[in-house]
């Protein structure tokens, strides 16, 4: 079975221009192939920045990010979900999905759109979609790239809770089927508890890993009790770091 790439993150320093403190200094994180890692931590800690560095969007730092042995920018296109839906307003939902991958056919895009529950919305422009629908199109866009690496920045915010359950299930199924490497940022411990097999908690400044927890039961097989246990573990770790 195909596997996702291994990630080797070694950031000597990341500092925003003019900022007095470094955001990261000496942060190392290795991510095993096909693992699902949640980056959890308070807002402003640098979770999204770290994800952007992995994606090759932010290259202004000293250190290295290797994806399957290649530099981040040279690695194959990852599937990426931004914190905002970031759809191209002049393209329909279907064309937004196809924009991510020049080889994606109309049928493939329709199929992915159907998987996120928007089969009938292909011809609509972003302004005709609700916030939650836009987020699902953004998720579909990340999936259509058929990437071995999925990077998701708060992918489940502003979705209504019943929908989150469905998207979680879709996501767990996808991960079980195609085994990509997934790194997702979330401030909600319930997302991490539902999907991740490893949760990396970031804290302090410069940010460092304050807890690195393994959540061994596969996402698709977690029952309610497991979810609650995992969530309690994560909440506990976050609280103890805050004390």
């Amino acid at each position: 079975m195909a596997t996702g790439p291994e990630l080797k993150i070694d950031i000597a320093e990341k500092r925003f221009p003019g900022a007095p403190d470094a955001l990261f200094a000496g942060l190392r994180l290795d991510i095993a192939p096909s693992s699902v890692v949640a980056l959890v931590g308070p807002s402003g800690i640098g979770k999204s920045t770290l994800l952007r560095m992995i994606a090759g969007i932010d290259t202004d730092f000293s250190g290295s990010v290797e994806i399957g042995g290649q530099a981040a920018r040279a690695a194959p296109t990852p599937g990426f979900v931004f914190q905002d839906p970031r759809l191209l307003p002049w393209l329909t939902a279907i064309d937004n999905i196809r924009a991510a991958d020049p080889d994606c056919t109309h049928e493939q895009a329709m199929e992915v759109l159907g998987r996120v529950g928007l089969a009938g919305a292909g011809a609509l422009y972003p302004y005709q979609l609700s916030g939650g629908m836009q987020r699902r199109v953004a998720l579909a866009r990340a999936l259509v790239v058929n990437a071995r690496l999925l990077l998701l920045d708060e992918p489940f915010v502003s979705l209504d809770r019943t929908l989150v359950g469905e998207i979680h299930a879709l996501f767990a199924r996808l991960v079980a089927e195609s085994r990509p490497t997934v790194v997702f940022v979330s401030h909600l411990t319930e997302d991490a508890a539902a999907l991740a097999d490893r949760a990396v908690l970031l804290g302090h400044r410069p940010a460092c890993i304050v807890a690195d927890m393994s959540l061994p039961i596969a996402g698709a097989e977690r029952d309610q009790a497991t979810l609650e246990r995992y969530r309690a573990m994560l909440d506990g770790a976050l609280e103890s770091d805050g004390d």
Partner: protein
Amino acid sequence: MSLPLLLTIWQVLSMIIVNRLFPSPIMVAQVMWDAATEGRLLGDLGKTLWRAAMSFVIAMALGTAIGIAFGRVRWVDRLFSGWLLVGLNLPAIVIAIVLYIWLGLNELSLILAVILNKVPLVIATVREGVRSFSDDLDELGTVFRMSALRRLRLIFIPQLTPFVLAAARTGLSLIWKIVLVFEVLGSDGGIGYRISIMFQFFNISGILAYTTAFILVVLAFEYGIMRPLERRILRWRPVRN
């Protein structure tokens, strides 16, 4: 509705104020018909439209290219923004007179004068457009490893288009006006030239007939081409009621 209303008011006023210098729309329509069928109206109209079209196309192409450079390349903006300011504020008539003196009373001077009047406006509008480009969408191109050509087609051109359309719209209204003024100033034909001759004879019916014919063309262009084009290109924008 607004145009029939205007014509009705004009007709009523001309019936109240009976004067040779205030012809009714029906009289003007008659003169226009005669000028079109027997006179030089169509030839003059063609000449003016050709001049306007040439100036428009060249000015838009030139202005868009320079505007992009102004918006993207900082030193170009720093070095030449003063020139742009001068260009924006230079009286149209001065440009025309200077070019007529330098290059002679010919077609080239006229078209060049119109272009030079319009280009700064296009540059300024396009520059603002380029400056307002979204970094977020640039990131989208980066993360999905879009080729330069794809970025151009999917991200760059669609962001620029509303500004180019705005420049086209304001530019057109400017060109319609100044082409006529420059034709009055010096040319061998065209609506403006003919109106200046009629002015010498106080031929108000002829002036209004020529003006109306010209306005009809402008309106046809606006409703037949510009608006449908805008609606089609900008259909992704929410409709505001």
